[in-house]
């Protein structure tokens, strides 16, 4: 799908870096989450073993996706649920709109779902005059601001409490204070009404269990339970790959997901939903729909270099440790999925390297994301793989292509390398002061804006070698 961000990457990044409130809020929260993750994963013991197990289960499912999807669909239907497969974002929205019309729904309440965000359900509903309310506190807040989430787990990570208080007061005309209990109590008052009024409840799906046809949701606010039980109709959006084989496998992810996401040993609620209300059940929706969304995922299947990205459980751990994310926040990534996972996933899901292929360059390749990922996706390797494709497609800037060609020709010939290094050294005295270049020409500008650059040594190491080797006890050989 050709969706284009409003501004180019570099511009988006520049804006974000300049927004001090945003960056301070993001840093504060990611620090807390990262710290929590470290201590809770340590407390579990054997973290690496759990990660391996998680990765094994997810890889197995993704390799046999057809089989498990078939099993899931069968089991959901057995329990009276309706299953819909959406190839594209548009199809997913159309399916949902159809259900909305059939039910003559006026009001929809949602619990957090990245996939519904990915296919842009809210906008479509608003366009046909259906009221949509996000019931996750973070989502609720940014919905009021008319913004998109900027973190997978903490959508309003970029807002501080003062901004939130002002917004709440603005919509209600009240005079709230900025302390957490007051703010959450206000949101709760608003949302309670909405839960009871809604015709349809929409949820995401952290995992679908193939063997039982269940939907599993990890939540902290209890809103997930209300959304899936109070309104008469429950619709769950699920990314096509979010499956695990059996109930037993859930243990691994009960351990991995909350710890990686928020540093909790377990979330407040782990809900397992087995379709609609059955006879004798005390609660539950009367009708259950599962919308399984492909939207680019099946294209990643069979792509050796990237298939593993489908193992992702959307925990957000890679965002929390990513130094780039921490300095630019989520919106600068330009699409639904921010941070390292976004930089890997967006070009694939969008299937448009021309527009999104520069995202993987927004990383210093420090590897913190790979280290943090609970299902061991080699994110930093994938970033480099993307770059290699970008270059192969001829999308890199022309000057850069020429520069690396020239670089390769020079550095593949030691003689030429020596000469060119010498030439470079001859130019430096014109620019340097006390052994440093404080303002460089053209491309050095980026560097010297914020730091000084050392001037090359008067004599390179190789030029010093013969003298040095003569002084060694072991008497290094000349070559």
């Amino acid at each position, binding site marked *: 799908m050709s969706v284009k961000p409003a501004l180019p990457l570099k511009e988006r990044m520049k804006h974000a870096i300049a927004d001090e409130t945003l960056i301070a809020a993001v840093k504060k929260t990611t620090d807390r989450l990262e710290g929590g993750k470290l201590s809770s994963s340590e407390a579990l013991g054997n973290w690496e073993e759990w990660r391996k197990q998680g990765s094994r289960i997810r890889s197995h499912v993704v390799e046999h996706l057809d089989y498990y999807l078939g099993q899931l669909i069968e089991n959901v239907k057995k329990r009276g649920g309706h299953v819909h497969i959406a190839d594209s974002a548009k199809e997913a929205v159309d399916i949902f709109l159809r259900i909305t019309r059939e039910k003559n729904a006026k009001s929809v309440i949602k619990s957090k779902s990245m996939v519904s965000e990915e296919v842009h359900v809210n906008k479509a509903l608003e366009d046909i005059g259906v009221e949509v309310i996000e019931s996750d506190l973070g989502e609720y807040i940014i919905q009021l601001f008319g913004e998109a989430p900027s973190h997978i787990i903490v959508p309003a990570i970029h807002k501080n409490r003062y901004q939130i208080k002002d917004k709440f007061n603005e919509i209600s005309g009240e005079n709230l204070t900025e302390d957490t209990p007051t703010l959450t109590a206000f949101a709760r008052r608003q949302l309670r009404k909405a839960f009871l009024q809604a015709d349809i409840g929409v949820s995401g799906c952290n995992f679908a269990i193939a063997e039982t046809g269940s939907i599993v949701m990890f939540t902290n606010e209890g809103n997930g339970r209300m959304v899936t039980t109070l309104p008469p109709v429950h619709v769950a959006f699920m990314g096509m790959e979010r499956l695990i084989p059996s109930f037993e496998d859930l243990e691994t992810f009960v351990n991995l997901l909350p710890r990686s996401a928020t540093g909790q040993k377990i979330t407040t609620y782990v809900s397992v939903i087995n379709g609609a209300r059955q006879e004798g059940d005390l609660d539950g929706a009367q009708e259950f729909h599962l919308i399984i969304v492909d939207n680019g995922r099946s294209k990643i299947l069979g792509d050796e270099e990237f298939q593993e990205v489908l193992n992702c459980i959307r925990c957000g751990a890679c965002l929390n440790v990513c*130094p780039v994310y921490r300095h630019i926040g989520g919106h600068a990534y330009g699409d639904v999925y921010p941070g390292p996972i976004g930089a890997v996933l967006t070009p694939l899901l969008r299937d448009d390297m021309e527009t999104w292929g520069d995202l993987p360059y*927004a990383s210093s*390749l420090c590897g913190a994301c*790979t280290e943090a990922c609970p299902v061991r996706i080699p994110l930093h390797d994938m970033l480099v793989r993307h770059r290699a494709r970008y*270059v192969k497609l001829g999308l890199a800037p022309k000057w850069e292509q020429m520069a690396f060609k020239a*670089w390769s020709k020079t550095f593949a010939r030691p003689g030429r390398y020596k000469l060119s290094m010498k030439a470079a050294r001859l130019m430096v005295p014109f620019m340097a002061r006390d052994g440093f270049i404080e303002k460089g020409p053209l491309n050095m500008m980026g560097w010297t804006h914020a730091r000084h650059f*050392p001037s090359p040594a008067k004599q390179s190491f190789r030029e010093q070698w013969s003298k040095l080797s003569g002084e060694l006890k*072991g008497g290094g050989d000349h070559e």
Partner: protein
Amino acid sequence: MKASLFITCLADSFYPNVGESTVRLLDRLGVQVDFPEGQTCCGQPAFNSGYRDEAKEVAKTMIEAFEQSEYVVGPSGSCVGMIHEYYPLLFEGDRKWEDRALKFVKKSYELTQFIVNVVGKTYLGARLDKTVTYHPSCHAMRMMGIKHEPLELLKNVQGLQLVDLPFAEDCCGFGGTFAVKMHEVSAAMVAEKAQHVLETKAEILCGTDMGCLMNIGGRLRYEGAPVRVMHVAEVLWEGVREGVKA
């Protein structure tokens, strides 16, 4: 024991003193060091930017240059990491080069790893009365798994006071071409790192990679901060010289 120095292109041109310290340290440990002049660069700048063919051409120069070496030792976790992580990939299925590449990988070591794990020494008879803080470079730490080696060597320098760097494992924002391509974020990252270094009040910042140290050092100098920035090899060698004097 014989080892060849892999100087890295950055140290060759900008920090020959790192090469000299490395060589003298190894020499003192009884390692016979040579310097194959056919070497240029590990190819990382091109590889990480997505230019694999270009990187591969340069990588061949390296394999050839060190074909005769028993061990290859370089003062950079990042460059040696490039060899370990990506040479097997670059030459996969290349009948002429694959074996040669894998042999090269097997005998390549980062300096502190080589001293601690291969030579088997941590005490070098060094003395340096300074406060030092250590930045663990991302590639050394995460690609090469170098965690305790440099610290052990530093802890065995008499008089040296090692102070913890806050948020030590955060990237300094260098990332090779990243520092130029995405210079705004890179600048924000290095500013934060420099801030943390200053908080330690250490006299010396040291690390295992000149790329990161060039970045952080460049920022510290930009801010006019009087912190000496040194490679671990330089700290150790200066310590050895002081130790001999004492």
